[in-house]
């Protein structure tokens, strides 16, 4: 999953950044970021608040324009084709926002239609919901009564209906109860096995080691570490991560003292 060679093993990266830089005035949010996520891979970006994780996701979504460098989705520059690149992306934030007076099925139909998939039959949409782990009876209820986990599942169902090639998950497990988090992890792994390229921004080291094919540690807008959870033990990953965070903390404290 190394950033520099996106065609390694003959597969093109679905999500890729090339020397991506983003500043907000004097503040550098991202500095020279190079990542690549290919089909069947999950990159978990770990980092403190302000490390640049969500900015990276926003650049892939085209919500922000890069100061320099490129964010590519399926080989296309997001800044050049912001609408087209969104067709390949499913975005699942911490809180999946849905229309409360609409049922799960109706929400799914709406968001699928926005992505250009407006010909689905009810049966096909129910299949997506079923694959996301939700029952038909639940799908027919207004989402006003849904738990956070159920909303996440509708978010997954939307992604399935969109036939998205890439998933951008921003703190997807935050606030989920352990059971719901486990269910979500199983789903995410299933999506990866089905060929999706997944980018997850999270604070949760435990879930990251469980989900990721690569873990990237971000600090102050830079990717400072890339780890393979298969070859590095989770305890060691935690130690490396905490070490980076401590450096950050010490530096921040020193800066404050100065």
């Amino acid at each position, binding site marked *: 999953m190394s950033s520099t060679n996106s065609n390694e093993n003959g597969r093109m990266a679905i999500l890729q950044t090339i020397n991506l830089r983003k500043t907000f005035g004097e503040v550098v949010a991202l500095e020279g970021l190079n990542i690549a996520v290919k089909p069947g891979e999950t990159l978990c970006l770990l980092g403190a608040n302000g490390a640049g994780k969500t900015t990276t996701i926003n650049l892939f979504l085209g919500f922000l324009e890069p100061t320099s460098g490129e964010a590519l989705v399926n080989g296309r520059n997001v800044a050049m084709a*912001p609408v*087209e690149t969104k067709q390949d992306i499913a975005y699942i934030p911490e809180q999946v*926002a*849905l229309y409360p007076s609409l049922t799960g099925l109706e929400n799914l139909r709406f968001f699928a239609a926005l992505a250009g998939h407006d010909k689905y039959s009810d049966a096909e949409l129910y299949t997506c919901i079923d694959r996301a782990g939700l029952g038909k009876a639940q799908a027919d209820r207004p989402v006003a009564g849904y738990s956070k986990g159920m909303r996440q599942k509708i978010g997954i169902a939307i992604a399935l209906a969109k036939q998205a090639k890439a998933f951008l998950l921003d703190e997807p497990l935050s606030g989920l109860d352990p059971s719901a988090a486990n269910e979500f992890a199983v789903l995410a792994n299933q999506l990866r096995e089905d060929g999706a390229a997944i980018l997850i921004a999270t604070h949760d080291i435990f879930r990251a080691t469980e989900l990721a094919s690569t873990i990237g540690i971000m600090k102050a807008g830079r990717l400072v570490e890339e780890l393979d959870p298969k070859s590095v033990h989770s305890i060691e990953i935690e130690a490396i991560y905490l070490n980076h965070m401590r450096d950050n903390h010490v530096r921040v404290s020193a800066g404050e003292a100065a």
Partner: protein
Amino acid sequence: MIKAIIWKELLQYRRDGRVMSVLLITLALGFAAAVNGWSTVETLQRERQSAVQSDRDTWDNQGKKNPHTAAHFSRYAFQPTSNLAVFDPGLKDFMGSAIWLEAHYRDPATLRAVEDAVEIQRFARLTPAWILQVFAPLLAILLAFAGIAAERERGTLRQVMSSGVSPQHLFVGKAIAALCIIALLAPSVIAAVALAANTQDEMGLPGAGLRLAGIVLAYAIYIGAFTFAAIGISARVAKSKTALVILVGFWAASVVFIPRLATDVGSTLSPAPEATDFEARLSSESSSPFWGSSEAAQQRRADIETEVLAQYGVDNIADLPINYDGYLLQESEEFANGVFDRMYDELWGAYEDQADIVRLFSLVSPTLALSNISSALAGSDMQAHRHFADSAELFRRDFVRILNEEMIENGGEDGYGYMSDNDFWQQNPDFDYQPPTAGDVLSNVWADILILLAWAFLAYQLASRSVRFSFKQEAMA
């Protein structure tokens, strides 16, 4: 994509009890207003037809009478009612529909009616036009105030943006959905039109189809302006509740307060004369300078006598081949007509100034602009009444001239003792009113049309730019 947004919005509206309640109430009011309007117009038309016939019968069968006595016996000009008044009666109910046609006299009923108009505009009436002018924008606000703000509050805006929806698509989709719901009020308008079509069109309003199309278009632009403004404000402010407060405040100002203020300012800055004063002046200025005992009046009459004697080459009135009393009566009419023209021009000028002042206020209230366009096209505004009053006055002058000529030509030495009979009365023409064309009406309200279009354009720009702004804000969040 826009189709999906419309579908979703309509589904949400259907499940929103507030929207459905307001829609049903407005619809019910619209139907009630249509039936009420139809009933009123039909009654007016029936009564007018009956009155016209009665007036004709009375005139035709008044028996032997001196023509000048008949000129004071008088007739009426009854204003026909346009079928479109079912939709928008405008100021019709308050301007009087009959004008007394008498010698030496221009009926000041015209004055009272128009004078009342300024106050009249303050009253709410159950008419389809009023329902649409007042409730349709409120419905538009209710439908659209949360359009973008609520999306932002619940987080769906970000979700929608991530699906590749452009600001313009979202704006257009939401606007069309809101307008579709407002269009459900159309059955009440259609009912008004159907009832109007079922009513005998006694006025024969020229270009009725064009006028109706103009009315539909004007209301569509007006409702569109409010819908766009609601979406624009919703996109610009942080909370949907804030948007609601701003929009309801604007609605109250535009629909209720500014029209009242405008008429108050209009009548203060350009006051019309008091009806009693005007009537007294009209009477004294049209009569005394001709018939009075002043030196000037005596000289005026002496000059006329000298002139007519010279014209016929005789030395005294008794030798004239015409009846001199009748001649003098017609001369007095010509004199009075000049006074009427001058004084009524001043009067209408004051009302025109008031209307111009009110029109200025439509720069801050689209309701005023629409109201002017609507009543003008329906043939029920002040200009329509003026057109009728002026036409009736022209008829009065002809009517009195015919009677005076009867006396001049056939009165001989009898003068005021000369009697005409029913054969003569039955030859006298009826008042045949020809309303102004649709083109004439549009030329009277072009400024209102421009102002309404400007409102719609600015509201569209506000919405379009604000939705783009909200996308940028959300992307930075």
